[in-house]
């Protein structure tokens, strides 16, 4: 209200700062992700899934010695969170993460809000970092919800004291939770890789749907490629290759070989996706 300067009076801080505090920007981004109704719905759906699986398996008594982890869940609740992760990470989790990544850059561009962010100004590299953190948060939230719901359902509905590993040994509850945490962390890295690639795709387009289709489509195609024996040489570079190895945390001792190669692969994808997103954003006309 009092202006005495000879030029446009601006708050003093603006002379020292060229960009808003990073924490506030990230906080605003996270709040934005969490205010979107469909993201919340997705989390809710994810929470319901382990309950559904656990209940059905408990009621029906399992698939009767069928394949894989389903049989292992019966009366062995701590397997449920890992099974839930394995089931969701193939399609559901990537879908949700691609959705958030799509909103992050493509959606903002379509809304015209990307311009606003760049004009604020949020630096282009910083913008990608902020968006990546938003996606990462959704990854952690989504996996956290699945695991939490899985553990609770496992303890309350499926039951079981500790964890009977796939190798037939019995682990106490504490160690079992450690194994579940390991699976969750591993899955988070895999999903972060999906998120990074989705973000890269998101930076190239204004159509959110395209990002979803490309990301999920790529995963489906990877699945097909994996199943073709003559393309075995391609397997090591496909992000989906070791995804079923998440159940290796349930072996005793843990089967680490595939888990580690999966981590390395996901790390490469994260680097690749993030770099591509930065490269695209740095030169993009908006």
């Amino acid at each position, binding site marked *: 209200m009092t202006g005495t300067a000879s030029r446009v009076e601006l708050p003093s801080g603006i002379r020292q700062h060229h960009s808003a505090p990073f924490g506030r920007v990230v906080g605003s981004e996270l709040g934005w992700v969490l205010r979107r109704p469909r993201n919340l719905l997705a989390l809710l759906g994810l929470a319901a899934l382990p309950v559904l699986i656990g209940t059905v398996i408990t009621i029906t008594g399992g698939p009767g010695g069928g394949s894989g982890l389903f*049989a292992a869940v019966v009366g062995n609740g701590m397997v449920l969170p890992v099974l839930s992760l394995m089931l969701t990470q193939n399609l559901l989790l990537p879908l949700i993460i691609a959705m958030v990544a799509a909103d992050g850059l493509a959606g903002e561009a379509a809304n015209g809000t990307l311009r606003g962010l760049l004009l604020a100004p949020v630096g282009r590299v910083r913008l990608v970092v902020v968006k990546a953190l938003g996606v990462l948060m959704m990854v952690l939230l989504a996996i956290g919800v699945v695991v939490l719901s899985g553990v609770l359902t496992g303890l309350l509905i499926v039951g079981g004291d500790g964890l009977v590993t796939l190798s037939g040994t019995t682990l106490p509850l504490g160690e079992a939770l450690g194994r579940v945490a390991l699976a969750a962390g591993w899955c988070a890295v895999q999903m972060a890789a999906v998120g990074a690639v989705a973000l890269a795709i998101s930076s190239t387009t204004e159509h959110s749907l395209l990002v979803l289709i490309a990301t999920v489509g790529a995963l489906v195609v990877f699945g097909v490629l994996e199943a073709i024996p003559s393309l075995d040489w391609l397997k090591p570079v496909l992000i989906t290759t070791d995804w*079923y190895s998440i159940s290796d945390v349930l072996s005793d001792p843990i089967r680490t070989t595939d888990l580690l190669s999966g981590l390395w692969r996901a790390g490469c994808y994260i*680097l*690749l996706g993030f770099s591509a997103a930065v490269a695209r954003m740095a030169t993009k006309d908006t």
Partner: protein
Amino acid sequence: MRRRNIALTASAGIAAGALGLTSLALPAGAQNPRLPQVSADELVASVMESDPPALAGRVTVHNELGLPALPGTGETGELLSGGDKSLRVWYDGQQRQRLSIPSGNGETTVVDDGNTVWKWDSAQRTVVKHPNSEETEVERPEPSTGAEPGEIAQRLVGKLRETSAVRVDGTASVAGRDAYELVLTPKPDERTKLREVRIAVDAEDRIPLRVEVNANGSSEPALRAGFSELSTGPQDAELFQFTPPENARVRTAEKPDTTKPDTPRSGRSGITSPRIEGDGWDTVVLSRLPEGTMSSPSGRKTDDDEQRGTGSTGPRAMAERVGSPISGSWGHGWVINSSVGSAVLTSDGRVAAGAVPQQVLIEALRDS
């Protein structure tokens, strides 16, 4: 920062990521080590004499036998059905051992704690107990060959030399360890589908690390089984104990398991004793399925004095499905050909198998 610099830095990131991925696709190019010369006799003898140390490792089986996947043959079938399979092994240096075979998203674990062999199947949630464990798992070539006395080696090499050329052919690096390559090549008059068998022997501990079976007409091994990871040294004693989980079904096998076709023992106590025809590389195993039980599965795996082709026949329906019909003066049947061997099942229940072309089998059937 200028945008172009950012883009350039980011491009470097993309390149690094792509490179990292490619590194996964490329085989680790370990150089063949330089090792002191050793003769084939010495090498075989040292293998026979050495006691395998306590170890933990991962055995990878790479298989291009060209066998059709046989349903209902369990882990063994899965191991033989093509592609890469891996199993983990632990050995305490004496007699206790543990074997863990992944199957789907489950696992089969075999623990030999010295008194009892426990077999746990995570999919079925069953534990089978074999109180008597005088014989060790045949699927593990390395510890099972260990306990043999030294003079067998010489006899063995002598016997091998009757039908094969035995030599040491350079060195190899297997699971990060230096190894000699022992090569067995059939003599020219052996009528076999096999070209050679290569055995990589650890230079230090003298245990076989890898076996490769090469068939005629292919540069890639038809079968390669060997350690992809190996560490020697004392192992955690807990690994060799097994307590069945609470809600598992525990069953005690009265005698060596014969009901499951996938255990290697079934060949030994089968319904009909096999008859061996010929010797060396062109050995043919002749057998007969029980009368009228052409529908019950029967697996057969033969072990001669070295790793060799695997003949495997199933029930008649399976033979009809995966084999091609043939007939001759000896009768009528189905032949299954793989890159390393053949098997014939006749309509009257006779079985012939060997690491030989089908013509040899037919001759054997005719003579029998």
